[in-house]
């Protein structure tokens, strides 16, 4: 009986670890999936926008001495502008080019952002004071980190807000129309360029929030901080069904849980293999991902 209690307590603790990791993946995946859903392009620079958001927070709080709320807002504004600028300069000229060209450009932008951060901030990681000061919650033997709670709640709020925005506002409906058929949307009077720019604006502001939460949880930012979470979040978006906002949330949380539980109970070395194994199985059974919609292309 005693042993059972200890085991279940550890299991609960590991579940919480998985949830806190997964909610960060989910938050990053929201931006990925939104840009993919509307523009049908994989914005590989998304992870690096997170890095820029994290650096902005560190500059705003550390060097300018702004209070956390202002620092977070500044970081969101800078990232939103960056996202729109990237779209204007790098992706818009390729609107009618092959998807492969856009993909390669996105990878180029990703390297550009990493190298710029390396030149500006140097290769050593910076310590950033947490912008979120929520103390850990103690439930008997269990410790739940304050950051984990905030991240999870904020991800749920943002996901709900984003779903509502897309389905119930004019801009959101314009986004849906553009994602269905760019040409037809334009004929119906939707400003395609502005709609896509708005998508990038929101996606990048979300990335800034993800960046802020990421460094509040982990404490450090370097030029390559965004790369690995970016890839993991991409996997989460595909797992949940890329293009689907609730799917990104589900995919992120599942990914975090699988990763954490396989590290704890199977093998640390095999954790990533298991994560990607699950992804392969899901895609074999349901090629659109867990919550992805199947879309028939009409010729």
């Amino acid at each position, binding site marked *: 009986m005693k042993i059972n209690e200890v085991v279940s307590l550890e299991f609960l603790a590991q579940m919480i670890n998985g949830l806190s990791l997964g909610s960060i993946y989910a938050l990053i995946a929201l931006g990925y999936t939104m840009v993919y859903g509307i523009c049908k392009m994989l914005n590989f620079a998304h992870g690096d926008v997170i890095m820029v958001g994290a650096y902005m927070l560190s500059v705003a709080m550390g060097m300018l001495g702004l209070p956390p709320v202002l620092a977070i807002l500044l970081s969101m504004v800078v990232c939103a502008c960056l996202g729109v600028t990237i779209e204007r300069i790098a992706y818009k000229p390729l609107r009618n080019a092959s998807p492969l060209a856009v993909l390669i450009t996105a990878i180029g932008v990703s390297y550009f952002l990493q190298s710029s951060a390396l030149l500006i901030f140097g290769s050593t990681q910076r310590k950033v004071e947490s912008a979120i000061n929520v103390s850990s919650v103690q439930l008997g033997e269990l410790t739940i980190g304050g950051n984990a709670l905030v991240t999870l709640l904020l991800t749920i709020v943002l996901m709900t807000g984003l779903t509502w925005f897309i389905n119930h506002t004019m801009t959101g409906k314009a986004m849906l129309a553009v994602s269905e058929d760019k040409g037809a949307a334009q004929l119906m009077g939707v400003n395609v360029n502005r709609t896509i720019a708005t998508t990038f604006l929101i996606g990048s502001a979300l990335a800034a929030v993800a960046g802020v939460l990421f460094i509040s949880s982990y404490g450090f930012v370097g030029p390559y*901080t965004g790369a690995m979470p970016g890839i993991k979040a991409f996997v989460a978006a595909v797992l949940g069904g890329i293009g689907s906002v609730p799917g990104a949330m589900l995919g992120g949380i599942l990914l975090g849980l699988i990763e954490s539980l396989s590290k704890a109970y199977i093998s640390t070395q095999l954790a990533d293999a298991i994560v990607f194994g699950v992804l392969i199985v899901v895609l074999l059974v349901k090629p659109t991902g867990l919550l992805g919609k199947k879309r028939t292309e009409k010729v």
Partner: protein
Amino acid sequence: MKKNFLKLMAMSLVSVMALCSFAGCGGDAPADDTQKDGAETFKIGMIGPLTGAASSYGISVQQGCEVAVAEINANGGVAGYQFELLPADDQHDAEKAINAYGTLMDQGMNALVGTVTSVPCIAVTEESTVDGLLQITPSASAAKAAQYDNCFRICFTDPQQGEHMANYIAGQGIMNCAVLYDVSDAYSSGIYEAFVPAYEALGGTVTTAESFASGDVDFKTQLTSVKNSGAEGLFMPFYYTEVAYVANQAVDVGLDVPFFGCDGWDGVIAQLNGDTTLVDGSVFLTPFLANATDDKTVAFVEAYQAAYGTAPDQFAADGYDAVYAVAAALEKAGTVDNAALVAAMHEIELAGVTGTMTWDENGDANKGAILAKIQDGGVVPAE
């Protein structure tokens, strides 16, 4: 017009990207062949990453070497020779290290201090053993980095560090210790693999051995397992970047045990911006303490500080000792003949800033370990 402007922007963006990708190239120091009056020149090659991600190590070694060379020359040189340092960049890349080696040989290198990192070092030993050149690596800790008879090493090997720390932890009365290590890194796994048998031979129990891969930033799962394994201490043989993450997250999962580390911890205080509350009381093994009070260290730190404005780290100290090891071998041999220099290495004893050392038949240094304790934002010798 607007379209042209955008094209221009796109073009300039592409060219900036292209420039960025080349930014890492170049930077080889030009050879300086001028000889000092009256004395012959003994040329010491130095290969290490002077640019790129590992450049902080290479630059430290180079600066340590420069300080030693300047001191030796100011004291009239060794055996009638003035020293000259020829630094070359390998960007922590085996192929570039071999190219740099070739260039330095063309410039008439008499001995090599290098390379700084393990993988390029192993590649260069394959070349230097053919030439029979005296090669002393200041800081490459992989076993194969000193695999041939002409190769020597200043720093500890990975297994030596594991054994030293097993002794220390058991000596502190901590008999249930957990280990967290980087499975994707030869340095970290090497220390871990030597630690376990040494610790168990002393009667200790490794409660759990958890691992991660380089680049991971989330350690909460592993730390939760460590907490539940009933460990009284946690040995963390990996670099300071991850140490900082682990220290932060240990608080989140409620793990409160003493931490122990290896020489990769050098730099952890700067990483934490001097705020060491999370790692206070941790003890790590280091070859060099800049605030030690012996005359040698004080003199070295002063000279280094005067030249570069910062305190030297262990890499600078390793480079400094490597040049003095070459000097001692030259003094003993009395000739620049390669075979004589290599043979002399086994006969000398060097009292350097990283300890008093002799070299065994494998080319590894025998020296004592310094244990450093983190306390109030600084590092003090551990009792």
